[in-house]
Each structure stands twice: as structure tokens, then as C-alpha cells.
């Protein structure tokens, strides 16, 4: 087929265009939040003492970490999902959440006596953490990988990994409302492992499923 002929066919098919990416991302985020909320509230749900907990710095700091991670990952993946968008500044913003966690860990090490470090790091329910963050995040990850297929990422593996970080940030935000371990030492260890697992799954998904 000559290129000229192909253009005739493309032109004849110009009629209706699919939903623009910007709008489609917000739909995807809404669906992902709904899925994560459904899984969270039908399984573990928030901790019973959530109201008093909300007055403590440590409890609230968890949401700062997870929401900053989710927001920076969303900004980056929106750029990664379309060709030719510049990503360097959004990449730099991905450092925000890890830096906040590092800062909180340093503060915690100053405030807490050394004898308690181990206890705070191990916490009381790390297995639940490492089970439920991926469990809450797997549905959103599938939604975000679907969005990458709908879009046109020129770096599908990286975009898939960021989809995992976004799903992880979202899932960890819900999970943090359940978790009794509020120490930054716990968060920096077990949340990170759980979210990294989702990022790895996302990278594999990007490699295998995101083709265009």
C-alpha cells in the first residue's frame, strides 16, 4: 500500500476521536480510588482509634508521605503517557516523598531512645502491611497500566514502574488509616518494600502489556 493510499484511509476515519488523555487520566484515578476504597473497607478498614490518632504527628505524617508520592507519580505518569512531553522536572519531584521520609527518620532517631529503635522498626503488623498494600494497590495498578495502553508511552517499562508507584502511593494512603505502626522507621522500611513490589510489577506489566 502506498503512503498516499494509507492517508486516504486515515482521513476517512478522522470522524470521532477518543477521549483526550488529560480527561481520561482523571477518570482512571477516580476508578482506581473507588477500587482501592472498596477493597480497603471490605477487608481491614480504618483502625478503631482513628479519631484520636489524627491528633498525632506520626499518624498524620504517613499521609503526607503517601499523598506526596501519589501526587508526584501522577504528575510524572501523565507526562510519560504521551509522546514528546518533557519529564525532567516531574522526575525531580519524585524525590520529594523519599526525602520527606528520610527527614522524618532522622527526626525519629533523635527523639526516640536507641533501645526502642528496633521495636519501632519491626512494629506490630509488618506482614499485614506487606500483604495489604499490594492487595489494595493491584486493582489500581491494572487501571493505570490500562491507561498506559490507551496512551502512547515511549518508555513503557519506566511508565509501568511509575504506574506501580502511583498505585502504591494510593494503596498506602488507605492502608495508613488501618496501620497501628506510625513510626517513620516502620514506614520507611515496610511501606517502601510493599510499594517497591508494586513498582516492580508495574515495570513488568509495562514491558509485557504496554504496546502500541
Amino acid at each position, binding site marked *: *500500500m502506498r503512503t498516499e493510499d494509507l492517508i486516504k484511509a486515515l482521513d476517512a476515519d*478522522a470522524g470521532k476521536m477518543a477521549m483526550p*488523555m488529560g480527561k481520561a487520566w482523571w477518570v482512571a484515578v477516580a476508578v482506581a480510588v473507588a477500587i482501592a476504597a472498596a477493597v480497603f473497607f471490605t477487608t481491614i478498614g480504618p483502625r478503631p482509634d482513628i479519631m484520636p490518632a489524627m491528633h498525632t504527628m506520626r499518624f498524620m505524617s504517613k499521609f503526607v508521605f503517601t499523598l506526596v508520592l501519589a501526587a508526584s507519580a501522577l504528575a510524572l505518569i501523565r507526562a510519560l*503517557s*504521551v*509522546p*514528546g512531553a518533557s519529564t525532567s522536572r516531574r522526575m525531580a519531584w519524585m524525590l520529594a516523598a523519599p526525602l520527606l521520609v528520610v527527614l522524618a527518620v532522622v527526626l525519629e532517631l533523635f527523639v526516640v531512645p536507641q533501645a526502642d529503635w528496633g521495636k519501632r522498626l519491626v512494629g506490630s503488623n509488618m506482614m499485614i502491611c506487606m500483604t495489604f498494600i499490594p492487595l489494595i494497590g493491584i486493582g489500581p495498578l491494572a487501571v493505570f497500566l490500562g491507561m498506559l495502553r490507551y496512551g502512547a508511552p515511549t518508555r513503557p517499562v519506566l511508565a509501568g514502574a511509575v504506574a506501580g508507584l502511583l498505585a502504591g502511593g494510593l494503596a498506602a494512603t488507605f492502608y495508613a488509616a488501618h496501620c497501628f505502626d506510625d513510626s517513620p522507621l516502620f514506614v520507611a522500611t515496610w511501606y517502601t518494600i510493599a510499594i517497591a513490589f508494586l513498582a516492580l510489577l508495574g515495570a513488568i506489566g509495562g514491558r509485557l502489556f504496554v*504496546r*502500541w
Partner: protein
Amino acid sequence: MTGKDEAELSGLLRAAIAGDERAYADFLHRIAALVRGFVRRKVVQGGVDPEDVVQETLLAIHVKRHTWRPDAPVLPWVYAIARFKLIDAFRRRGRRIEVEIDEIAETFAEPETETVSERDINRALEGLPPTQRSVVSSISVDGHSIGETAAKLGVSETAVRVSLHRGLAAIAKRFGRQ
């Protein structure tokens, strides 16, 4: 690539998205010429047919045109797609050469077997279900309109549009990374 090109092309694509078919044809012709120049500069040795890459890029631009933000420049978007499709072509060629060596080892008794380029858009067209194939080739190769194609095949114009849309999407998907 000049500022004038950029302004004209993004204007054309905006008009096309708003429903102006003439603007879309104009846009695609000019993009084809730009991409052809880009690909020919990059493909210095054989193995990759530049025109194949041009066609795949046009298809990808078409099926992914919803990924362009109307307030963003259009040329970086076009060249990012062209570069992606070009790398894909090189990558596949590398893989195909490996496959060919294996095949020679296995089918040494029949060396006359000709290797046909799997990237050729005609092959993708042949892989379509019959209705989609006849619609796509009626409009592209034979140059008929939607209405003429509908009359020729004895189906509604809507059915022709749907078959064309699905057929093009299927061809584009076939060219996707594997």
C-alpha cells in the same frame, strides 16, 4: 523544522480534531514528508524500509491523536512517535536476523524459501477479517469514498465507518511492539 511549520501544523491538527477533514489530509501529507526526511536520515544501511516506518508512524499518529494536547507543540509529539517507531523497526530487524539464522539452520534443505517483510502494511491488511479488509482497501488502494464503499459492498455507511475504524486500529496494533 521551523516555528512557522510548528504553528501551521498544530493549527491544522486542531482544525482536524474539530472535524475538518481537508485539514487532516493536509496535516498527514505534510507530516509524512517531514517524517520521511527524518527516517531517511537515520536509516543509513539496509534492512529497514524507511517507507514502512513512515506508514507505521502515520498510523500511530492517527490512532493515538488523543494523546496530543492541543496547547502543546505538535512537532516534538510527532518526532517522539517517529523515533519510537524507528527504534521499534531496528529492534525487530535485529530479532528477525536472529530468526533467519535459526531458520537457515533448520530448513537447510529448502533454501528457496523467500522471507517476506512482516512489517509490510499489506501483510497486516491481509490479516484482517474479510469485511474490514475490503473496506480498508476500497477506501485506501481503490480511493473510494465512504459512500461509494457502502454502495459497493451493500452495507450502511455507519457499518463502513465502523469497519474502517476497527481495521485501522487492528493494523496499528499489529505493528505494536511484540
